[in-house]
């Protein structure tokens, strides 16, 4: 039984020693991959094989492996986070592939996400966008007000929560034909704009976050809707529309 669940696959993986060097797609064969293993476990297995062959293992990002940290990435067979919908690469399992499949594994491609090594890209541009305005100024020195003391209507709370589900993985940028970060920024702007605590700094927030987004070299949204479909957290295009409204409002102030 156990052997039946194993598959043999071929891989084409982007290898790049460092940011300043050119990379290329390299072919690998990997046998006896359990269909119960996750995609990252499969890469672990491939790396073990490479180490045994005294070759440099493939560098890739990962952390919680539970689909909530936003650390894993990978453009697998032409799709961000692979063929499944609503999951990150760590939650993608090898049962989604067939015996003998050739799997392309590439890093996120964006000017604002430069490759550091192999499949690892530098997503600190997202951090800088957050630092530009993705916060609320609250005094936390011991006299914090209970969040539940502020009444919020259910619909807004739900929408803010849905926007806050964004884990900042960058799949939206990776899949967008324009390399646009507007779904990410839209989600981050929305999650605060919908809540009373966030309204205080709403004007500067959206202006600063969009300015930072532009400075980082992301492209411009053309409303293809690809990001919404590939987003592992199902962040809606409504958030981009809300950011557009917020920005227009802020610009006219």
């Amino acid at each position: 039984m156990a052997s039946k669940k194993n598959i043999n696959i071929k891989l084409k993986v982007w290898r790049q020693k460092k940011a300043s060097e050119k990379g290329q797609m390299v072919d690998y064969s990997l046998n006896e991959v359990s269909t119960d293993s996750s995609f990252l476990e499969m890469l672990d297995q491939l790396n073990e094989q490479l180490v045994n062959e005294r070759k440099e293992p493939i560098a890739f990002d990962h952390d919680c492996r539970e689909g909530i940290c936003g650390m894993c990435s990978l453009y697998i067979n032409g799709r961000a986070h692979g063929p499944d919908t609503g999951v990150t690469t760590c939650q993608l399992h090898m049962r989604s592939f067939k015996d003998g499949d050739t799997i392309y594994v590439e890093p996120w491609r964006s000017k604002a996400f430069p490759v550091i090594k192999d499949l690892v890209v530098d997503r600190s541009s997202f951090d800088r966008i957050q630092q530009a305005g993705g916060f609320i100024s609250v005094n936390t020195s011991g006299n914090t007000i209970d969040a539940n003391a502020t009444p919020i209507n259910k619909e807004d709370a739900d929408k803010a929560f849905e926007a806050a589900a964004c884990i900042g993985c960058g799949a939206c940028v990776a899949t967008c034909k324009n390399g646009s970060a507007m779904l990410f920024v839209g989600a981050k702007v929305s999650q605060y704009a919908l809540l009373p605590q966030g309204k205080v700094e709403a004007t500067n927030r959206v202006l600063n976050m969009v300015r930072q987004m532009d400075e980082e070299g992301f492209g411009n949204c053309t409303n293809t809707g690809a990001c919404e479909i590939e987003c592992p957290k199902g962040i809606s295009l409504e958030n981009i529309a809300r950011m557009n409204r917020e920005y227009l409002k802020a610009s006219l102030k």
Partner: protein
Amino acid sequence: MAKSALLKSSLAKKYWMALTGLFLCLFLAGHLAGNLQLIFGDALKFNQYALFMTSNPAVKLLSYLTYISIIFHAIDGIMLAFQNKAARPIGYAMNNPKGNSSFASRNMAVLGTVVLVFIATHMMNFWAKMHFDEKMPLQKITIEMQGMKNDFYLTTDGGYVPANDQNYIIKNRTEIYDATANVKVKEAYKDLHKITFDFFRDPQYGLAFTIFYVISMLVLAFHLLHGFQSAFQTLGVNNKFTPLIKAFGTGFAIIVPLLFAIIPLYIHFTK
């Protein structure tokens, strides 16, 4: 800060794309209504309409707004397209954009460029002739009197003037002067109707022109299919009316170019 942001930022460029695009949709609807007179009206009605469109001050203002919108929409679009291209210097070895986005949404720049080329040729063929061509024909009718066929210019006061008469001379392309008194007596119509029918019934190139126009309208349809509803999303409208906007946009994108395309087909195939 706020003011400069509204000119330079990514979102500002998108707002301008959306606003100029929607204005051009209004223009299309108006232009179509006028053009349909080529099928449903007669030559005089169409030429009267053409005269109105080139002389009425309010229309003039709208036409300048349209020229500016086309130019701005094109320049802004090209700038955005180059920025978007630059945002991904290295592409994917394997990509599947078909799986998550429509053909039109991914090719707006290419579709728009084709539409722009079409607009340029279209303006050269009709608009430029109407405005600048010294040899623009005037509308004539032939009346048979006592077995003799005589040509007359139709005039804006509803009358007519003999065309080959030494007593009248034409100045400033449309003004009919009394030759002896040297005073303007009447004004003739530029025959845009004839220019249009001759263009699509040209024995040598009429079919090619017709095909080019139909293909251009197909391209326009795809451009509108994404562009119309996309403009509303860009301007921040994404709510319970969005399904309605999308349905209306789809209808607009199919019906308007289709009706436009029927005109050259009608003219070419009814000769």
